[in-house]
């Protein structure tokens, strides 16, 4: 955590998500309590299928819980209408997905500006903001490239820029380096480190300890529940990258 004053931006209490019935009942998320402060970077780790992604979707209002509460910026989001959830996702949350999820027919800058256009910004303002963000993630020279012409790391940087488009309260990243090679992973790590430095609240779901090591706090998840919490000192990606062998 970067600041001393602890303000919860995201809060979950008794959060549960169940699928199926009777013998087939599966608890993907099982009684999670969690508070994430402003500017904090939190990593959630665990093996595949432990419920990390489901938890992230619940925190970001992409999915509705079976029980429990989720609050974003002090406001409950588990019992609001679909329309209000959509509005909240538009302004308060940015998502970064493992498989990038870029629109194949849109250029990098068109992908990034899409969130701003959905939020009702003028086309000019949306384009200006998108170009700024692409410059910030190091893709100033590739704004007119289609996703198919970009490398995996570059695509993920476009996705990060898109997530930041509407200056969200929190960025939720689901295995952001899961589909990347080492060099691209380093790029993205650096980007998240920059976001952390700038005070952006981040929740990163990963099963990669190298990514988790960049966080302020790290939660371990097993069978849908948070079983362990570790406070980390944090560190720059550069130093960490060298430490964990991502750099020569």
């Amino acid at each position, binding site marked *: 955590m970067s600041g001393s004053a602890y303000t919860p931006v995201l809060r979950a209490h008794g959060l549960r998500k169940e699928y199926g019935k009777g013998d087939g009942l599966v608890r993907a998320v099982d009684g999670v309590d969690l508070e994430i402060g402003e500017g904090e970077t939190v990593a959630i780790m665990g093996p595949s299928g432990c419920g990390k992604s489901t938890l992230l979707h619940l925190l970001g209002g*992409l999915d509705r819980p079976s029980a429990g509460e989720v609050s974003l910026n002090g406001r409950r989001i588990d019992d609001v209408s679909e329309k209000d959830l959509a509005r909240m996702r538009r302004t308060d949350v940015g*998502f970064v997905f493992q498989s990038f999820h870029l629109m194949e027919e849109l250029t990098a800058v068109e992908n990034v500006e899409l969130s701003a256009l*959905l939020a009702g910004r003028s086309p000019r303002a949306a384009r200006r903001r998108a170009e700024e963000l692409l410059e910030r993630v190091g893709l100033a020279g590739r704004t007119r490239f289609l996703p198919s012409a970009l490398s995996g790391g570059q695509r993920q940087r476009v996705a990060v820029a898109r997530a930041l488009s509407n200056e969200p309260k929190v960025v939720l990243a689901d295995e952001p380096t899961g589909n990347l090679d080492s060099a691209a992973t380093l790029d993205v790590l650096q980007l998240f480190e920059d976001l952390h430095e700038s005070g952006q609240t981040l929740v990163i779901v990963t099963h990669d300890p190298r990514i988790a090591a960049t966080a302020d706090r790290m939660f371990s998840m097993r069978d849908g529940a948070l079983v362990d919490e570790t406070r980390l000192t944090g560190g720059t990606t550069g130093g960490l990258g060298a430490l964990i062998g991502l750099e020569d």
Partner: protein
Amino acid sequence: MIGRLLLVCRLAVRDLRRRRTETALLLLAVMAATTTLTLGLVLRDAAGDPYRSTREATHGPDVIAGAGRPAPLSDLQKLAGVTDHSGPYPVAAAKFQASGRTSDVQAVGRDSAAASVDQPALTEGSWVSDDGVVVEAAFAGAFGVRVGDPVTLDGRSFEVVGVAVSAAMAPYPSGSCLVAQGCINGPMSADTPEGLLQNPGLVWLTQKDVRSLDPDHLTYVTNLKLADPDDAQTFVDAHRSGGTRLQSWQSVLEDATELAKDSQILLMIGAWLLGLLAVAGLSVLVGGRMADQHRRVGLLKAVGGTPGLVAAVLLAEYVLVAVLATAAGLTAGTLAAPLLTESSAGLLGAASPPPMTLSTIVLVTAVALGVAVAATIVPAVRAARVSTVAALADSPRPPRRVGSLIALSARLPVPLLLAVRVAARRPRRVALGVLSIAITVSGIYVLLVLNAFLTSQPLAGGYGDAQVEVLRRVLLAWTVLLLSLAAINAVVITWTTVLDNRHASALTRALGASPRQVSTAMAAAQVLPALAGAVLGVFPGGFALFAAINTITGGDSGRATLPAPWQLLTLVLATVLVVAALTAVPARLGARRPVTETLQGW
């Protein structure tokens, strides 16, 4: 070879059974076209039955001859090949009045005794007697005249003693002209020469009564039987002269089935429109289905299937459907044909299902296969060419990028922004949607014109009330099939778009678009092409189709009342509203799918 054939058939049948709804839609679409085409091809044969029954019951003539004097007709009776005759009988033009209504008629003077050739068959009452008139059945029906009713001919009183049918002339109002002054069907205009009989009916009197009507202007008619009735037209061609008018029984049959001919033309054009609609609908359905079958194609190739085999399997599915649709269409069309023929009071007996001819079977099969192959060939070849690795990876065909539309859409409200982008991703599908609506609206435009024509001036087309009813039935069948197929197309196109845009829609929702915005966009993506299709369907579509029908039928478009601007505007707006309503359900269903489910499955 046989093993490969079996494999292709087995895979095709299994896949069709796995997707029953789509298979049923495919079958319905092709069947609509094959049924209409069959109807168009067999209708005339079906309509000919009542005339043949009447000809048999009345000892109908093979040739009917008319002249200003009896002498040339008596000469015809002596020619080689003529085996029997009746007449010459005198014919007079007269004004017929009954129940306050007036019409021109041709009155034929007959003997009280039965004739060996053309003895009209009574459907009511008795044969001619002095001061007793027998009225042709279709004319009696149109005028509401029954046995015992008092009528006047040129002001002289008669009693209706009988109602009869004859094969010597087509039933009212399609009858031929026997009088010297000539006849006209339809309304008189300023250019029409005076003295013509307008839509004349036919009555029979005694010869004495006819001669008393207008003794100075009589014409004569005789009925001839030939040794070979099939030679009637040759006989007519050989003995036609300036003063003698001859008509073969085949020509009377043509006149008697004129309505069926008009219905046939309408049905054939309807069949083409439905065929085109089927191609448009099938192309979308097949295209969407191919996207789903990507992985299956990869598996086939991975186990050694050649591109040819892959294409054959895909084509075989649709060829099978086409064959089924052909069989169903041929059966349904043949059975329905009698329902669309006139049950005219002017002829005896009812139409029956016509025999199936080889040419009909071949043509209907060819059209069904043509529709199936036209809709399938592009996706099948594309699937055959795709690399095995790409197919196994199940990567969908990348969407098209239309930069100008993407830039333009950025300035639009969110639902329209998304709608334009959804449409721009698959331009071919949009074009098929536009085509589908344009064809439908063109058809409706023509229906409006024909309906207005039948309402305002049926006699101009030579139609009586019963015939108008039949044509309306044909138009109704047309409308129902056209609208059904267009509705199926609209739903299929929307659903295929929804499936194709699952990922884009889920992503858009993850970025903050509400389900309503996404479903509105999905529906709007269909409504915008529908608007373009509706406008194009009116102009040039409707105008061109109507002009084509006039060219084929030799009709006079000047007599038709074209739809008023408000009707056209209503047609366009109604089309857009109906498409919006039809697409709303699949669009909403698509937007209900959870975002996470879609994104995780990608």
